């Protein structure tokens, strides 16, 4: 008596037994082979699942025959392939079906649909499916992707319907470089991280004296102060990025995203209503820990190959640092020039801080409640 539900169901209405069939969890199998200019694949779905989705028993006699399937083969193939997305990220290729076949997996009858796409798929590959997830929340699409002689496995679920496979370099350096680019790219499109770094820099070139912000001694002092906060931020987010990417710590992404927005607001408010006035790098470090988890979520998107996890991690982090350095390099000269003007500490700094705090707050509310307040970020 090892199935608990025996108990519960005593309280529920009994149900007439349905015809015996295979009873396993619902799995779909996708096999994909990519070359530089084409994608070949097969999609295998259980007859029973397809029936639940589109109704295969045309004559409603309780038997799904090959004739019933063959009679509507074209429409069926089109419906199925329209639920599948394969191709370069954001540009799914048009998939052309080949004749349907059948086989048996785990004792269950399956329909097997081969397909082909003539499209450039030598680079990164995005795989997505909406098939069956809305009917069976436990459906899993098991994908096996072969490209450049390497085979990788991934699983699509109702919550994770899309995955991106980076171009498999047999060339390890190319792969490494790919992750560097992803890291840098992420900083560039991650307005929240940019804004946080800017906030840190704005505050680093002033110090609190007599209840007011005044410029730090010299340009050299300002440079050192900026180096300190940026380094502290970098070290901190590297630590949490590694912890999260290696699976030591795992936090829900909505929590992280909301917390990141909060760090921006708090760091900006600190410039208007100062709490941390000395050792700004401590604040950079503490908040940097939170930003690292955000980077890790992006890294998780990229479907790391298990064997190259550490390499990819290092490369991604280098990319993040390079991107960050570029921001610093762009802002630094102007900031060093401005910081010495009385206008900076008295007007420009508080105005900028209030604006940043407002943006951070809007993001915070938007992410916490899952609504879109600002068009970006």
């Amino acid at each position, binding site marked *: 008596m090892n199935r608990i539900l*025996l*108990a519960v*169901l005593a309280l529920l209405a009994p149900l007439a037994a349905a015809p015996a069939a295979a009873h396993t969890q619902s799995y779909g199998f996708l096999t994909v082979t990519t070359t530089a200019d084409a994608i070949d694949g097969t999609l295998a779905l259980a007859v029973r699942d397809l029936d639940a989705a589109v109704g295969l028993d045309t004559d409603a006699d309780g038997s799904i025959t*090959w004739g019933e399937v063959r009679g509507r083969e074209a429409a069926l193939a089109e419906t199925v392939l329209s639920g599948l997305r394969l191709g370069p990220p954001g540009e799914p290729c048009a998939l052309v079906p080949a004749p349907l076949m059948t086989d048996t997996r785990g004792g269950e009858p399956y329909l097997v649909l081969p397909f082909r796409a003539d499209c450039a798929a030598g680079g990164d590959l995005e795989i997505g499916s909406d098939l069956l997830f809305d009917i069976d929340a436990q459906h899993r699409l098991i994908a096996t992707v072969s490209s450049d002689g390497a085979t990788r496995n991934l699983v699509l679920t109702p919550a994770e319907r899309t995955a991106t496979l980076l171009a498999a370099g047999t060339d390890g350096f190319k792969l490494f470089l790919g992750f560097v680019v992803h890291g840098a790219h992420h900083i560039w499109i991650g307005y929240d991280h940019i804004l946080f770094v800017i906030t840190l820099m704005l505050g680093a070139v002033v110090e609190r004296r007599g209840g007011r912000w005044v410029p730090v001694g010299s340009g050299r002092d300002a440079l050192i102060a900026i180096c300190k906060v940026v380094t502290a931020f970098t070290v901190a987010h590297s630590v949490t990025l590694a912890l999260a990417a290696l699976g030591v710590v795992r936090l829900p992404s909505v929590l992280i995203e909301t917390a990141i927005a909060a760090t921006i607001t708090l760091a900006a408010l600190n410039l208007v209503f100062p709490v941390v006035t000395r050792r700004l790098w401590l604040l950079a470090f503490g908040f940097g820990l939170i930003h690292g988890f955000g980077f890790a979520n992006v890294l998780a998107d990229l479907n790391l190959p298990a064997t190259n996890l550490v390499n990819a991690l290092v490369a991604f982090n280098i990319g993040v640092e390079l991107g960050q350095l570029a921001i610093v390099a762009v802002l630094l000269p102007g900031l060093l020039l401005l910081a010495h003007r009385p206008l900076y500490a008295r007007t420009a700094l508080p105005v900028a801080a209030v604006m940043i705090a407002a943006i951070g707050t809007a993001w915070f509310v938007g992410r916490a409640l899952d609504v879109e307040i600002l068009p970006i970020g």
Partner: protein
Amino acid sequence: MTRPSDRLSRGRHGAHATVPIAAALAVSLTTLAGLMPAVAEPVRPDDDALVLATVPAGRAAAALPVRRRSDDLAGAVAEARAAIEAGRTLSDPRLYGRAEAMLSPWWAEPEPPREVRVLRAVIRQARHDFDGAVTDLDAVLAETPRDGQARLTRAFVLMVRGEAAAAAADCRMIPPTAGPLPAAACLARAAALTGRGADGFAHLERALALDAGASPATRRFALAVLADLAAGLGRDSDADALFSAASEDGADVPLLAARAEHLLATSRPAEALALLEDAGDADTLLLVRAVAAKRTGDPRLDAWAALLAERFAAAAAAGVGVHRREEARFRLEVLDDATGALALALDNWATQKEPVDARLVLAAAVGAGRPDAAEPVLAFVTATGLADRRVLPLVARIEGETP
């Protein structure tokens, strides 16, 4: 424009899932691959009359109704409940998946409506998320302590987790409106798990005799629990009679599996095979069949073993971990791989602590020559006083071997 949260949530099936899955797949495939049949190439049938599958008749183009509208709570709950019931009767995991899909408008809410929460707990336990199930049931019972279904479900989940004392407390709080039998069966089972099977048996037997008016489903359930108690007490002929009585007007898959397991445990594998003839190929039944075939030298063993291996490999590839108990048993009793079985049995023991789980660890530890590995189970048996006849001989054997 893309918000970072969109950016981050899009296709987030990266490092988190892929890495452990790849590892599990590698392990699983290397060991099971030898068993699987040479991959049958898909073919294009040439006979239009070929039947690919049988489904309930009278349902032409209509899909199973799927509710995604969040304004029909009552309808969604009713359909999900029916799917769960059918899923239990047939031991069909897909139907739990469909129930979950029907509840999807509320599923991810931290505090969904009470009815959804109870069903979410039931679905969670079905896929062995026992902690998640208990969390839901705790919340439901904190609000409505007299919810009999939630109470009974939590009692049985706690028993699976090896917390029979806490379970008994829940059994006692099942409201009388549920009738006396559910509470009696619940208490009897909790008693059996703490070495008081004889008391439990007498109590439940009396309750069954007194409550002739209970619904057939409830009586069937109580009889099945009683049959299992008898088997655990070594009262084999009582168990036979009770399993037979419980199956009188048709047995569902869990009951069939329990009855076949009893036949196996009492060295009647041929009868187990006969019982399961034409009973479908739910994972649990297929496993019992394979074990019975192994013992009787039935020629169908290879085909069944290959089928099981294929299913375990698919589950591993999908990152689905609910089959550890079954896979441990498969390795131990079908593949004679006690070492592999022991690892899985111990892994399973971390979440499931029923007598069958204890027996698996003990038998695998004996088979692998690793009596030391059975320590957590021995400690559990001592602490709870579990005296199940299917477990005790192995305990004695290991204690005899350990200096």
